[in-house]
């Protein structure tokens, strides 16, 4: 009796999990099917013939690799800038006392919730005025608007978790404040920095609206808007090709995800994740 109930629970639970994951499974299956099999009715659940032709065409005949390169540069640059500035800022917010500190923390949380559409028009005008429109730099600047508050908020809670005694001990031993930061705080904070960096990278990798508005040339276009251009400009939509692009676009996320497993819960515990 107890056994059969457990089996039933497992079947239902896994049924639900698989239903949620089905669109992702279908994405991979579609990307591997040859053209003629795609339009067969009823559809085949697993491809009868596995083909990598769509991946090959994606890499050789479309600007996919260019978009991919742009996305890698964009997401990495955003992560480095944001985590660098954010680590110093979080250290200051948590461990120093000065006027205006509380209101700054308030401002960080406020901007963390701010909608992008409010900032997008002034930012667009700003980039046009600076002559930066259609560059990856303009996107890095725009991405700090959501990534910096997010990273600061996460790092701030990681920083608060480091016992203050450690730093005091180093100071008593004659270390300078910055020396203590480098030798005591940074090593302790490293897991937090890694997890913040991974989350920031994902945010930047997935961003769409700023890329849509600020960049209008293939030279600087990241994957998100690039792949959508492939959908819109195609005469008839090639779903296999688009699914192959979707899979390729998710590969870095899967790699990050594998890294993230151990850091994941830490990030969520420390201050939720932006959506």
């Amino acid at each position, binding site marked *: 009796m107890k056994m059969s109930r457990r089996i039933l629970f*497992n079947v239902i639970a896994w049924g639900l999990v698989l239903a949620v994951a089905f669109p*992702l499974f279908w994405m991979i299956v579609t990307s591997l099917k040859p053209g003629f099999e795609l339009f067969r009715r009823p559809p085949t659940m697993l491809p009868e013939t596995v083909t990598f032709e769509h991946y090959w065409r994606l890499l050789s005949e479309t600007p996919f690799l260019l978009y991919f390169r742009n996305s890698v540069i964009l997401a990495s640059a955003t992560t480095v800038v944001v985590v660098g500035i954010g680590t110093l800022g979080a250290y200051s917010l948590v461990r120093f006392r000065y006027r205006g500190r509380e209101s700054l923390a308030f401002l960080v949380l406020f901007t963390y919730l701010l909608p*992008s559409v409010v900032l997008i028009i002034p930012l667009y005008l700003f980039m046009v005025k600076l002559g930066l429109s259609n560059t990856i730099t303009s996107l890095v600047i725009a991405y700090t608007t959501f990534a910096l508050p997010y990273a600061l908020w996460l790092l701030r809670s990681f920083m608060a978790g480091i016992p203050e005694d450690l730093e005091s001990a180093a100071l008593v031993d004659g270390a300078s404040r910055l020396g203590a930061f480098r030798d005591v705080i940074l090593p302790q904070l490293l897991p937090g920095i890694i997890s913040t960096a991974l989350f920031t990278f994902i945010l930047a990798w997935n961003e769409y609206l700023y890329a849509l508005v600020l960049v209008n040339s293939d030279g600087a276009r990241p994957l998100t808007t690039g792949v959508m251009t492939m959908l819109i400009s195609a005469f008839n939509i090639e779903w296999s090709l688009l699914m192959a692009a979707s899979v390729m676009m998710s590969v870095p996320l899967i790699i990050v995800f594998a890294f993230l497993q151990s850091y994941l819960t830490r990030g969520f515990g420390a201050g939720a994740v932006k959506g």
Partner: protein
Amino acid sequence: MATADLSPLERKYARLGIVLIGPTVLVFCAVIVYPLISAIYLSLFSIYTPTLEGEWVGLSNYAELLAKGEFWSSLWTNIIWTVGTLTLQILFGVGMALILHQNMIFRSLARSLILFPYFVSTVVAVLVWRWLFNDLYGILNHFVMWTGASDMPVDWLGSMPNALLSVILVGAWKYFPFVVIATLARLQTIPDSLYEAAKIDGAGPIARFFDVTLPQLRDVLVVIIMLRAIWDFKEFDLIYLLTGGGPVTSTQTIPLLVYKEAFALNQMGMASAYAVVMMALMLVFMILYIRRTQENEL
């Protein structure tokens, strides 16, 4: 705290603290505070996007906006979308968290699979769903006709109310994992002794859920609902990419209206006015959330 009371060392530290926060403050002023103020300023002008030339019109953008049917219908759609998708996210998210909290085989694999929709790009999610929704070859329509629920392929995105329901459904699929993780983290901290006490009192599984689990989850659920309400309300990518606001304007929310006004109708001043009104509406939720977070920290 007056600066005069501080020792020289403390004053030196305060200065160092300000130097360290300096880059953050600079970036904040340049890319957030300045654009925010100029959004409000721009909303008082009438600006033609291609030439960027404009003239002062004062508050007339706001007067026009409040008299427009399109603003009110977009606001209404925005509210339906937010309430609809948030309700599904919470119900499905808490349900899934309760399941994943139990002993099941390959639990960590199941958890990773559930998280995936949340981490893939909205672009990927939308492409996959548009393929699933495809009227001729989409697997959903095949399934619908195979079960006999309908003789005709369903037009998932091109007609109402289907389009709005589809958008709400995809939104729930994409964002419910957030609810799962946050709830799961809280579930793991509920002490077993509470359940044992309830068991001794003769409470069944359902009574235990309502008497022990739910009250324990209350605080975290309030936070999740506020955060997700803010994020769902301002959602642009998912709706824009799935339906573009269509058919006609049936799924157009305020963020889409801002984008359309600024970059399709080329009225930047008017678009800024929409954006400012939207922010004012969200401010209530934002302040509620910030208040709550600060209370928790004290």
